[in-house]
């Protein structure tokens, strides 16, 4: 057992997975990543702002590197246009987003879970960006690895959505149980002409050749483009290329569907949580069971694109309780929109972590304080 924090685990996992450049601008509560990255990344660059951060990362990615950054809402907001660019150019990168209390600058040292729907709508046109959300230290390790794998495999930016308490709280943790991480190589297209930068294979992913290749001409483009990477307006080829951005992720969702499911036989009620609220939900479920209540627990780790396999689980339960540290219930809205649903409740809060007792109260159990 070692006293360790999530920022350190995520940083180490990224580098082991082959991330080789960290570009960033420090922002609370994401700045431990900045500090660890300075020590650990093969190359560390301090950008003057978050727009530059994502532009530099895109340049590195286009040159064949695997860049990572970490930020919080104010920085993420500045990144949105460049995130669209990287998405359209199909450039792998990992962005760690450490949520903090908003709106606006809000409260830099207070955690939150308020950015899910911003990420859902971040790409103009509503295209999905993979968003993974760790609910514990093992997830920090595994999902950072999966994030880099997914970014490279499907040529896309990937978001690792964390919160202050996940990356700044120290915990004793048995590191020896963590699985090995193997370096993910960026696959290069087979040599030989002709090469078309956006002509995709069956998996919907175009083979990658870095800018500056000696024999194949590479053209990358953030505007609507055809297979050659040159601007085309409404040509069928350009529209197919744009549609492909949606399809390449949707058709491959099973490869990056992550969740934790603790089912109790005979349970009719399902508690659904993610990220930093998952721990309180774990405690609440244990307490409810000790009181004789039958209840199951679902911890969602792939938040976007929302996996059909998780919808299948939700459909099995009549009664559902969504637990998340925001007021409107963003995950619930992601799943059910504005629909009125009988037997679906929410535990919401801002300003501090949801406690196990608050969940127990909503689930009809007998609350008792922990600690």
């Amino acid at each position: 057992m070692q006293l360790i924090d999530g920022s350190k685990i995520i940083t180490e996992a990224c580098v082991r997975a082959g991330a080789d450049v960290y570009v960033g601008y420090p922002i609370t509560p994401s700045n431990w990543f900045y500090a660890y990255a300075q020590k650990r990344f093969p190359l560390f660059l301090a950008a003057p702002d978050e727009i530059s951060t994502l532009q530099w990362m895109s340049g590195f990615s286009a040159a064949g590197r695997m860049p990572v950054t970490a930020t919080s809402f104010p920085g993420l907001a500045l990144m949105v246009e460049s995130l669209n660019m990287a998405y359209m150019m199909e450039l792998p990168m990992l962005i760690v987003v450490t949520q903090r209390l908003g709106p606006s600058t809000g409260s830099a040292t207070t955690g939150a879970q308020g950015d899910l729907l911003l990420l859902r709508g971040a790409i103009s046109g509503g295209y999905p960006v993979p968003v993974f959300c760790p609910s514990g230290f093992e997830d920090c390790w595994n999902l950072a690895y999966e994030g880099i794998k997914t970014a490279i495999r499907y040529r896309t930016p990937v978001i690792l959505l964390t919160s202050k308490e996940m990356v700044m709280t120290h915990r004793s943790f048995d590191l020896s149980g963590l699985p090995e991480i193997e370096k993910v190589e960026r696959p290069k297209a087979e040599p030989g002409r002709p090469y078309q930068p956006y002509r995709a294979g069956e998996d919907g992913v175009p083979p990658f050749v870095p800018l500056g290749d000696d024999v194949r001409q590479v053209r990358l483009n953030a505007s609507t483009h055809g297979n050659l990477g040159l601007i085309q307006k409404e040509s069928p080829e350009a529209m197919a290329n744009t549609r492909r951005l949606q399809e390449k992720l949707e058709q491959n969702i099973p490869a990056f569907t992550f969740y934790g499911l603790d089912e109790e036989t005979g349970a009719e009620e399902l508690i659904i949580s993610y990220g930093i609220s998952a721990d309180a939900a774990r405690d609440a479920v244990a307490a409810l069971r000790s009181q004789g209540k039958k209840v199951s627990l679902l911890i969602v780790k792939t938040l976007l694109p929302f996996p059909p396999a998780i919808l299948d689980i939700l459909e099995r339960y009549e009664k559902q309780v969504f637990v998340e540290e925001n007021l409107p219930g963003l995950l619930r809205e992601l799943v059910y929109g504005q629909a009125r649903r009988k037997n679906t409740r929410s535990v919401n809060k801002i300003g501090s972590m949801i406690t196990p007792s608050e969940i127990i109260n909503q689930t009809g159990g007998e609350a008792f304080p922990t600690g």
Partner: protein
Amino acid sequence: MPFCPGCGHGIAIKNLSKALEGAGYDPLDVIVVSDIGCAGLVDPVLATHTIHGLHGRAPALALGISLGLSNPGKKVLAIQGDGGATIGLQHLLEAARRNVDMTLIVLNNLLYGMTGGQMSGLSTLEFKAGRHIEDDAPPFDIVRLTHEAGAAYSSRVTAPGDFKTHFAEALATPGFALVEVACLCPSHGVGKMKELVSVASGDLGLARRREPARVAFKETAPLFEKGRQTEAPFHSGIKERLGIVIAGSAGGGVQSTARLIANAGILSGLHATMKGEYPITVGTGFSLAEVILSTKEIHYTGLEVPDAVVAVTTDGLAKARSRIKPGTSVVLDSKLEESASCPNAIYGDFQKEAGKQGAALFAAVFWLVKEGMLEADALLEVARKHKHAKSLVEVIERGVGVG
């Protein structure tokens, strides 16, 4: 050419292509980073690598490419208009400041061509006056700005001036090189060279001898090894769970005390969590930390009812007071006795005994050992590995002695 007939961009691009050929570049040795606007339409006419990004960001994107390339000898060439140059002025300055190896061509036709000929931040006063536009803010001089920021080469050329020398010079420069080209936009009435020559602020070439930015991808050591299983040789009297809040002021060792306790707990076979809370200005004000030690795995890391609150300064107590619940043991510095109005608290001369920096540790150790929660040896074992081992060990020994 994708430009309107007579457009200055076309002339500039032709000259640029000639300059590249003249310098002996194979098309695939060149990566063109194009911006948004008329200047950004160049991709299809070039046989080079091309990357077409966002408005104003071409120099920033080019910076990443230039530093990220693994094959040397490639030329990164960014092209933008005057609109792009002002949207992303920071990027020009940053690339110049770092002297990143790239050439940036700014095609300045003194207006926004693609959106209808509006004025830009590079439109000159004469130009605006000639169009009866009331705006007396002078234009940026990006040549001087980038030069001041550290560019190896910054120059301006007015079409149809001496492109050859300027482009050749820029391409031959290792480091950041800028060429601002004042050029025509006949579609919005900038059709005569005469007009352009009279308004542009004149050709200029500024050079600076300076090494270009270089980066190295280094081998680094892991932040932690994951193979090690620590032993837990010490005993703890904690039955199930202990939650303790430690409160003091910045610089009072509150965070390191909490970490030390958590580590001592781990050495006693317990699970531990530790988190800190302090104002953004970490050098002043309160400092508060929470530690949970538990015989079982800890999920929720909050502390609804602390078993103990230890506070050694006024700032600390003010912050921690709301955490005191019925059943919480309270340990306070005796200096707080009058103001605290907390009759059931345990008071000690922690500040007097251990000074400002040691008081929190002293008080916490005193209570933990007195209550049999942790062994003094577990705390000492952790302290001995600390970079300030000597003073920590001394404070712990004295804290234990008081108990």
